[in-house]
């Protein structure tokens, strides 16, 4: 296990380094830089600024300096949001995005699992057909379309939720739902298939024959077997929630990392954008690693190589 973890961490370091290098050289390869303002700067001022930000050094030296900074955890200064270091912006936005993501994942799991279980147990009934149709809709529609429809229905037609912003739990529910909906749909389908497989097994029949109540059979015995595909889907689901948050945070005006990333992208704030890319890569890799490790715990037949 330790060797597996060490090897994975090693690959993460290599991946991050590749991302950093490629982004760095791309940034430098493109004309124009972060110091361009709307009015042309006085040449002396421009020189001073360049010297302060080390932009007049040879390329390789800049690269080594940046790499050293990043390794020490210093992601630099944001070029568009004056007076903010990238680390500060991340510290501000991360808890917000994290809570949104966790609640969205929670929605996805709870809704998806219950829909899948109900569908599988009452196979062929109206509930099954209805739930699976809803799941198909959730998969087909992109999350910004779902968000738009939800806003029209639940904010303006029947005013239940606030339209945008952040602060109270009420602000959390609608965005988290829109973010998690496609994954809930996928998980519902996966759970249904898994449950249908498991429910036809002999040991389930034995459990029923022993006289156990239906709920115990399903929740304690069947669910564990059906969970594996859901757990392995969690990796891509988390990746999707991270990327989906870009759009959802824009629509609901939530001041999280997603919105900062899009703004950095459109405002050409390279340091912030690169810092966030590195952060997202790390997050994604860690989540995938956790999912793989938990897989080994859930299914004793799986060996980590």
């Amino acid at each position: 296990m330790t060797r597996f973890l060490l090897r994975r961490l090693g690959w993460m370091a290599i991946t991050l380094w590749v991302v950093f290098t490629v982004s760095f050289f791309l940034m430098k390869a493109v004309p124009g830089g972060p110091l361009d303002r709307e009015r042309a700067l006085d040449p002396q001022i421009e020189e001073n600024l360049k010297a302060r930000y080390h932009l007049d050094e040879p390329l390789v030296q800049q690269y080594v300096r940046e790499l050293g900074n990043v390794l020490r955890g210093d992601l630099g200064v944001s070029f568009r949001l004056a007076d903010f270091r990238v680390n500060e912006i991340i510290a501000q936005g991360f808890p917000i995005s994290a809570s949104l993501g966790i609640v969205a994942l929670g929605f996805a799991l709870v809704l998806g699992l219950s829909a899948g279980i109900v569908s599988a147990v009452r196979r062929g009934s109206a509930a099954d057909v209805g739930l699976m149709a809803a799941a198909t809709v959730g998969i087909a529609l992109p999350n910004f379309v779902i968000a738009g429809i939800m806003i029209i229905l639940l904010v303006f037609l029947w005013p239940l939720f606030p339209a945008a912003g952040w602060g109270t739990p009420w602000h959390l529910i609608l965005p988290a739902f829109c973010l998690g909906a496609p994954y809930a749909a996928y998980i519902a389908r996966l759970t249904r298939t898994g449950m249908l497989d498991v429910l036809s097994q002999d040991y389930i029949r034995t459990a029923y024959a022993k006289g156990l109540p239906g709920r115990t059979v399903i929740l304690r015995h069947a669910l564990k077997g059906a969970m594996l595909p859901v757990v392995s889907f969690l990796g891509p689901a988390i990746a999707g929630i991270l990327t989906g948050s870009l759009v959802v945070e824009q629509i609901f005006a939530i001041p999280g990392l997603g919105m900062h990333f899009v703004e950095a992208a459109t405002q050409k704030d390279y340091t912030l954008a690169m810092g966030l890319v590195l952060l997202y890569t790390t997050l994604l890799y860690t989540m995938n690693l956790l999912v793989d490790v938990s897989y080994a715990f859930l299914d004793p037949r799986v060996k980590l190589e």
Partner: protein
Amino acid sequence: MPTPRQPDLDRYAALLDEVRAIKGVSLGRDAWRRLRRNRVAMVSLGFLAVLGTLALLTPLLPLQPPRYVNMARQFAPPEFSQPEKPGITLGEGPDARRASLEEGFGRLDPVSNVLLAIRVAVFGEWSIPSICGTDQLGRDALSRLFWGARISLAVGLVATLVSLVIGVAYGAIAGYLGGQTDNLMMRIVDVLYSIPFIFVVIFLITILSAEATRQTLHLELPAGFEQDLEQETVSPRLGEAFAENGYPLAEGATLASETPGERWRLSQKEGRSYVVELADGRLRVVTETTGRLLGASRIVVFFFVIGAIYWLTMARVVRGQVISLKNEQFIEAARTIGAGRRRIIFLHLVPNLLSVVIVYLTLTIPRVMLFEAFLSFLGLGVEAPDVSWGLLANEGIKAITPVRIFWWLVVFPGLALGLTLWALNFLGDGLRDALDPRMKNR
């Protein structure tokens, strides 16, 4: 040799007839038969075929011009009556007609121009009424849906094809060569796999639309120039004002509204594009260099960048298939005859991969289209005045206000996207079941 007796001849003749009547079933036909029994997949296939044909023939359809701005009909709900100003004026002679068509439809390639000419000849000024309503600038939503379909579908197809070519070549080579080369190639794929490409792509697109210079100049313009900004082509008055201030404009510069009433993008075919902002009753011009990489526009870079993300899964799948096919007898036979490596890979292995490749094609296209919609939604994808479904969804959501609900701007693009993606997914599932070699002859 003595001639066979008559009963034997009859028996042989009967056998021969029986054998002739049996038709061998190829893999393809077998798969098609299985697919036909899957009703959902057939419905999806039909829907996609119809959509594809309509998208190809869009200039031929009697739709209202998608770029014709008519502020009087702003935010009109779906209606079934003809609009008063149809947007295509054919009256005053060939030049006026061409100008009106260009204003409404933009500059098109030769084939589309021919189709457009046919449409004008057949339908004249009549167009289908706005059954999907109009948007913020009074443009017909139905025609924008169709013109947007062209771009969304084109991006989906081309980007997927790019990823297909790269993925199949890479996977086939890695699988066939095996050993250390295979190991190395797959390690590269693993590293690339764990990079959240979506962020890198956004980063890339940002960089590629870099501004080289940003200079603002304030133009003094004669009264009434606001009307000039509502037109799609730069009026002579505006052109003169620009030239006087030191920014001569080329022939045929176009104006596209980015934020209605505030911001316009002035694009020229060659050279700089400008962003024009109206602030405090005066005009501000911000100069930017166009975001072109190696002479390619953003859409083309788009194709390649998106294609470059999705080839990884294709490469992995193809490699798996090649490894299982590598040791088959027919490959050994080819090697014995003296076929070289390249010939074996591309002539023998690749055709046998077709079934896997087709399935992944149909499952990747929706993901690519979704990604394009996603990027356009964020403003990083297709640029105005081009339309795509993602852009339409974006405009729809931006237009939602608590006072009036313009549901048609959200529902119809959403429906279009949803139905197409749905159909593609179901077709992909159906194809996967149909082409599964374990289900042969069932």
